[in-house]
């Protein structure tokens, strides 16, 4: 287990602060994608995720990665929120593109991802953008490995079709 995680589990707020700083960017990016670009909601969910992680960090035994454990909390928070209310559609994209990517394609990818079902969006983001192995992504989403692979395959096929229409 990483030192910062072990220290945070003993109630060290500074160590937990370090973990927040380390993971905030990717976690917020993941939640922004899940919420289809609703930055305010994604940040609220990210805050709730970190607070819940802090409450439960003593229960984290080091089985699997801390990152996976954190994303599992985020995914369950997101599901709770989607049950509570319908998410707003993607309306603004102010993040810009990554340097080696065509900005138009990137925009289309985000739009296309927004049209997928949340489990497909999550599975694709975890496995591709965040580079998680399928097994870990399945644990994050609390689904069997086969189901995770179905989400990935179905999501990819839908994306192919959606992006074909936007190809330059």
């Amino acid at each position, binding site marked *: 287990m990483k030192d910062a995680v072990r220290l945070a589990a003993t109630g060290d*707020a500074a160590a937990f602060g370090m973990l927040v700083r380390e993971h905030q960017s990717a976690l917020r990016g993941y939640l922004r994608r899940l919420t289809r670009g609703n930055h305010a909601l994604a940040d609220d969910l990210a805050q709730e995720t970190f607070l819940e992680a802090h409450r439960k960090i003593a229960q984290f035994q080091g089985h699997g990665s801390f990152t996976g454990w954190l994303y599992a909390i985020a995914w369950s928070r997101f599901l709770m929120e989607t049950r509570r209310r319908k998410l707003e559609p993607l309306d603004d994209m102010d993040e*810009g593109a*990554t340097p080696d990517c065509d900005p138009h394609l990137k925009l289309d990818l985000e739009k296309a991802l927004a049209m997928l079902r949340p489990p497909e969006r999550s599975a694709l983001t975890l496995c591709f953008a965040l580079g998680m192995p399928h097994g870990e992504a399945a644990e994050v989403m609390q689904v069997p490995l086969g189901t995770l692979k179905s989400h990935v395959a179905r999501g*990819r096929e839908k994306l192919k079709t959606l992006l074909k229409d936007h190809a330059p």
Partner: protein
Amino acid sequence: MNIDDLLNQPLAPVRDDGFSVRVVRRLRASEQRMRLILWGLLAAAFLPVLAVLPYVDIGFHPSAQTLQMLNSQVAPALATILFIIFMWKQRFSRL
């Protein structure tokens, strides 16, 4: 561009912009609230005991000297100092 290459693009970095500080601040506020609630509950649980204590013979028969000390200014001052030290330790031990 291939679909897998597109998906493999890392998520755009999100600037912290005070996010981490807000999380830690909320975390500390929530801990402080929990501590206050705990102390409140303890006090509420202990109040009935204090209320009936004068009417119960618990076998504590202080000497005249002890009673004099308890009735003096020393006891409340000592209690206040202990309380301040305790609260100070609680507040700053995690910084």
